[in-house]
């Protein structure tokens, strides 16, 4: 996928992923009247040791993509390959063993922890499940050592191990969530908005922790967020989604300095920078209107109604995600799509 890594097999590969939700009508006899296309033909790869960001606004399908990869959401079509093994075709029992390789960290540290489980039990739970299933052989003492070690790694004092979630602050709860995700020594951590529920001063503590853990344990991250500044800081490569599709994929410096897709350009220009003189000088691309409904049957480019550079072809044909330059892919008719009438309008 990424030309720089052609020789290496990606850790995770998502191929033509589609997640559709049926829209039904009727009280007794439910009839399907349409589809909500939450994720519509999405393909990308994540290499080992990389941190890849998945950004976009609410409803763009980034969280659904994450859930589908973690197999917490049934997929409609497509393939998810982990180290080349196709998870989507795997029987449930085999998938169970596979799951320890990819773990999730969730957005809300309040609702993602069981209020009646202590920090220790929460972190130990994944290990105990694997032991119960016979896929791991650990004694309670070994589990204990491992949990306490995880608490150290996540920056939680060992003396907190018997406390319940309500006794922790938001930042500490997210540390518990991270420790739990790391319990099975996963290769891939899928973090869905891990810092957006946290205050600014706590957010940087968690981001630093996740970076330290990446260096220490060689983790690979798929980092989902709506805050572009956070993603740009945390990730090497960024996937920009819009209305269930991928608009652009680029290394973060390239995406920031030279965004190609008109949507990415608008998105970046809308992010406020905490620097008053710069902020006053910046020209903002104000997009017209709202994101269209994902329910409507669509033709052509998903961004066409809000795009200032829309051409005739944009209404007729959905652009493919093509490489515009090495490592930088964009789905836009402005950049020499096959069969498009070359960008004479811009």
């Amino acid at each position, binding site marked *: 996928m990424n030309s720089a890594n052609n020789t290496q097999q990606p850790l995770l590969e998502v191929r033509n992923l589609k997640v559709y939700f049926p829209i039904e009508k009727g009280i007794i006899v439910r009839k399907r009247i349409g589809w909500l296309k939450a994720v519509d033909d999405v393909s990308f790869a994540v290499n080992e040791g990389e941190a890849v960001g998945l950004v976009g606004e609410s409803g763009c399908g980034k969280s659904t993509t994450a859930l589908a990869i973690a197999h917490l959401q049934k997929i409609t079509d497509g393939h998810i390959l982990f180290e080349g093994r196709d998870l989507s075709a795997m029987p449930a029992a085999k998938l169970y063993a596979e799951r320890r390789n990819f773990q999730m960290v969730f957005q809300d540290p309040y609702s993602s922890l069981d209020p009646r489980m202590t920090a220790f039990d929460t972190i130990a739970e994944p290990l105990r499940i694997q032991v119960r299933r016979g896929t791991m052989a650990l004694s309670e003492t070994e589990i204990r050592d491992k949990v306490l070690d995880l608490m150290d790694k996540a920056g939680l004092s060992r003396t907190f191990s018997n406390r319940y979630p309500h006794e922790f602050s938001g930042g500490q709860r997210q540390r518990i969530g991270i420790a739990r995700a790391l319990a099975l020594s996963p290769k891939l951590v899928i973090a869905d908005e891990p810092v957006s529920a946290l205050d*600014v001063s706590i957010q940087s503590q968690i981001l630093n922790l996740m970076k330290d853990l990446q260096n220490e344990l060689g983790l690979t991250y798929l980092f989902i967020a709506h805050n572009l500044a956070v993603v740009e800081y945390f990730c090497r490569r960024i996937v920009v989604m819009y209305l269930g599709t991928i608009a652009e994929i680029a290394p973060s410096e390239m995406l920031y300095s030279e965004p190609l897709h008109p949507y990415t350009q608008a998105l970046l220009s809308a992010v*406020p*920078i*905490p620097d*008053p003189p*710069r902020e006053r000088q910046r020209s903002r691309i104000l997009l017209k209107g709202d994101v269209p409904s994902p329910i409507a049957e669509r033709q052509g480019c998903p961004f066409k109604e809000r795009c200032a550079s829309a051409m005739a072809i944009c209404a007729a044909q959905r652009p493919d995600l093509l490489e515009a330059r090495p490592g930088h892919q964009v789905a836009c008719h402005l950049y020499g799509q096959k069969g498009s009438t070359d960008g004479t309008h811009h």
Partner: protein
Amino acid sequence: MFDKKETVLSVRNLGTRFMTSSGTVKAVDGVSFDVHKGEIFGIVGESGSGKSVTNLSILRLIPSPPGKIVEGQIMLKGKDLLEANENELQMIRGGSVSMIFQDPMTSLNPLLKVSVQIAEVLELHHGLSRKEAEKKVVELLKAVGIPDAERRAQEYPHQFSGGMRQRVMIAMAIGCNPDVLIADEPTTALDVTIQAQILDLIRRLSDSRTMSVILITHDLGVVAGMCDTVAVMYAGRIVEQSAVDPLFREPKHPYTKGLLASVPRLDSAWNERLYSIPGAPPNLADLPAGCAFAPRCAYALPVCRQTYPPQTEMDDGQGGKRLVRCWLHTSENSGEQA
């Protein structure tokens, strides 16, 4: 910077407490600030810093019990709101001071058409008939950039998107030409491209109507782009207050400094380690003696843990003054700091 301008709202030594089972929570303590005509005044702070309670106190919207405004003055054009009776307050709320909130969906009545909800404000405050009011509603919806305003006025809140709902709230808020618009995290629930649209709208309305705005936010980027003056709150107090440029260029209070350094920025280099303030904000029911930030502060002096620092006035380098509450910057200690 705004000294020559007329002061519209002046808050003096405001103190709001909540009596809870775990003790008295000092949600707001000794807060003073002035808002001038046409100014956008930012209040920035983390959750629990008292920024929302300050503004609810201004409109006397603190539920009592358990809340109570225990001291201070809130002067709106020469009148103390803390001494106003309920009838006077009703005329001020939505009249000369109006408010928009974070979540526009919960602020609108889902059972009433948008036009009826906006018209209500005009009927109540300006004594317009329903017909006259509804005519004005369409004008207001146009002013806040809602396309096809005649038709949309007849729709219900659920038919609007998040950004459009916030526009409806703004239309309702500016209906009576308020002197002050209080916007409490108006864009936190919105996507960044919609946030840009709403902030642009608030700024244009403030300019065209010389309306003062109190903008409450946790986002320093929003403050940088929108505000003229900013107050930074921590644990119920304003720790630093200044015109925006000097504050961002050279933050004086260690908390402001830490906050600015811990935000990932779009224009910062990749892989730079973020600064992070150690620890967590204090429990407001059990504040430490002295400065509330001292336990997390890298520069804390022995005195910081004993006595709350007095307010120090400094020149902001552009003809105005900035205020800091930190022992490092009081006249006795400022010499010690390198």
